[in-house]
């Protein structure tokens, strides 16, 4: 399989008062064609920033890439020209944002917003673009798409707006869809509709997708592979089933145990002590060591390398082989 996307040693941060604060502290991962990768993590772990870095949109949030490479079909995206970037965005890679209310321009009709994207990348007449846009709306399950073309975003419900975002994203048949918390702002019953729609659209056409979320349940049900991030670092990366069956990293283990014990209705919920670090907080050694019940001396002194296990999983922990020896660490 060919690598569609490769991220090498990416570091991202912001500069304030001449001081650079890294928020993503060096991450590596890759994505194959047709693959469905989930990135999970809690607030401030840098998962959204990773997606913005791929899209080259960091500068609009006041962030910069300080190191590393982002390779798209072998081409490094960091130093591409503005023109190259423009022809790639929305065309080869498209993004779906968390809050469809604010991600759509309130002043323009739904139709205008889809048509302008089609016409930015395809040499078609306005009529043809409109016909295509209607088709897209139909594809994402919007009833009476013709009349919806002239509607403004505020006149639609949250679920419908997210469908419009998806229609827009797939209108130029991108190879990769990045969905950043696409259902966090939606209700549970609507969330199910949207996630089903997204995964159907992706599998139908052999597209790739990166699904960014804080919800382990979503990842478990919709992704083939999962990458867990914490404080700007990759903790673990595994195929989904294996990750949930036997998490390697103490952080993943803690997260899964706490969600499972909530689901299984146990008296005492397994919990990770301490609190989520602020983005940009400097932590010596392993970023998780302060909250880790398995931590040993080396953890607070040296940063663990990311290791690839025999069965192709990746984990960044000094002690991952010995985790099973400590029982009930999170109770």
């Amino acid at each position, binding site marked *: 399989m060919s690598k569609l996307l490769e991220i090498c040693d990416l570091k991202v941060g*912001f500069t304030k008062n001449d*001081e650079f604060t890294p*928020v993503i502290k060096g991450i590596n991962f890759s994505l194959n064609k047709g693959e469905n990768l989930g990135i999970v993590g809690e*607030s401030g772990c840098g998962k959204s*920033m990773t997606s913005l870095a791929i899209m080259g949109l960091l500068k609009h949030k006041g962030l910069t890439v300080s190191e590393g490479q982002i390779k798209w079909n072998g081409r490094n995206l960091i130093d591409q020209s503005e023109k190259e970037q423009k022809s790639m965005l929305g065309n080869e890679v498209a993004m779906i*944002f968390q809050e469809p209310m604010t991600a759509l321009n309130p002043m323009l009709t739904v139709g205008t917003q889809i048509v302008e994207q089609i016409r930015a990348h395809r040499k078609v007449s306005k009529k043809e673009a409109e016909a295509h846009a209607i088709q897209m709306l139909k594809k994402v399950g919007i009833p009476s798409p013709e009349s919806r073309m002239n509607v403004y975003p505020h006149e639609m419900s949250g679920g419908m707006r997210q469908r419009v975002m998806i229609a827009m994203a797939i209108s130029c048949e991108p190879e990769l869809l990045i969905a950043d918390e696409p259902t966090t702002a939606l209700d549970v019953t609507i969330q199910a509709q949207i996630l089903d729609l997204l995964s159907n659209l992706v599998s139908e056409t052999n597209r790739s997708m990166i699904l960014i979320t804080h919800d382990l349940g979503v990842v478990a049900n919709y992704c083939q592979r999962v990458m867990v991030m914490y404080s700007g670092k990759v903790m673990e990366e595994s195929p989904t089933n294996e990750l949930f069956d036997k998490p390697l990293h103490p952080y993943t283990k803690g997260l899964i145990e706490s969600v499972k014990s909530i689901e299984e209705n146990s008296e005492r919920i397994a919990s990770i002590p301490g609190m989520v670090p602020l*983005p*940009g907080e400097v932590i010596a050694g392993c970023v998780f060591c302060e909250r880790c019940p398995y931590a040993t001396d080396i953890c607070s002194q040296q940063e663990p390398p990311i290791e690839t296990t025999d069965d192709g999983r990746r984990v960044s922990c000094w002690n991952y082989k010995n985790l099973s020896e400590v029982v009930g660490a999170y109770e």
Partner: protein
Amino acid sequence: MVKLETSSGNLEVQSTQPLQKVKARRKFKISLSNVLIGLTMVIFATVLCAPLITSYNPNENDLTSVLQAPSAAHLMGTDHLGRDIFTRVLFGGQKSLLIALLVQGIAVSVGALLGLIAGYIGGRTDKFIMALTNIIFSFPGILFAIAIMAALGTSVFNLILALSLVSWPEMCRLVRSQTMALKEREFVEGGYALGASVYRILFKYILPNCYGNIVVIATLGMAGTMLAEASLSFLGLGVQPPDASWGSMVNTGKDYLYQAPWYVFSPGIVMFITILGINLMGDKLRDYFDPKM
């Protein structure tokens, strides 16, 4: 006041704000605006200590030295009646400054109180108070002040009255809109849930959270008041001769623009720097209290 942003991208950057703010406070750069603010402070100090600094009498004519150019004896020259312009600028500034302070004091107390009441009670009370501010806002610029001065006659008391009347509505609207937003906030609701009295809610929960904006608007309002006072005095509707005032000095000076340009420019430039300094200060305060603007 960190707001929970809906988009996670924003949240990640925003939650670091408290840390950043502490750092920003420590650094002090020498920039044009800081120099101007410093200069304004110096002007304030000089103006308030005017009698200690100058030995001339601001209102004493000296027809032997009329329209003299700036010199060591007369830092800013003399006017058409031979009075020391520097001295008159100082005494004029004193008057201007005290009037502006008093006017903003009145505007803050009246405006904030009415704003709190309107925003909190709502309904008819709110409609009535807002109608009052609307009517005052319907007179463009200083026209209302001009009309009042024309009707009541020129005196310092009337000047303060007129300027206060046009200044309070802005404060009132600001406090009202903040009150309306704040009373929906969960921590205020928490106050209700505890059974806190209306008085406590207004003055302990809502008002302290308006202070930042009140200070900003009052500072910018002070610059506006000084400007309006100067304009009225220029038109002959403010401070009356022989008392000095920046506006009236420029007004009499304009007839000597050819022979004695310093007559106009001395009070004009001091006035400009002062108002600019206050405005810059207001801007700084706004950046401090509300980093998003």
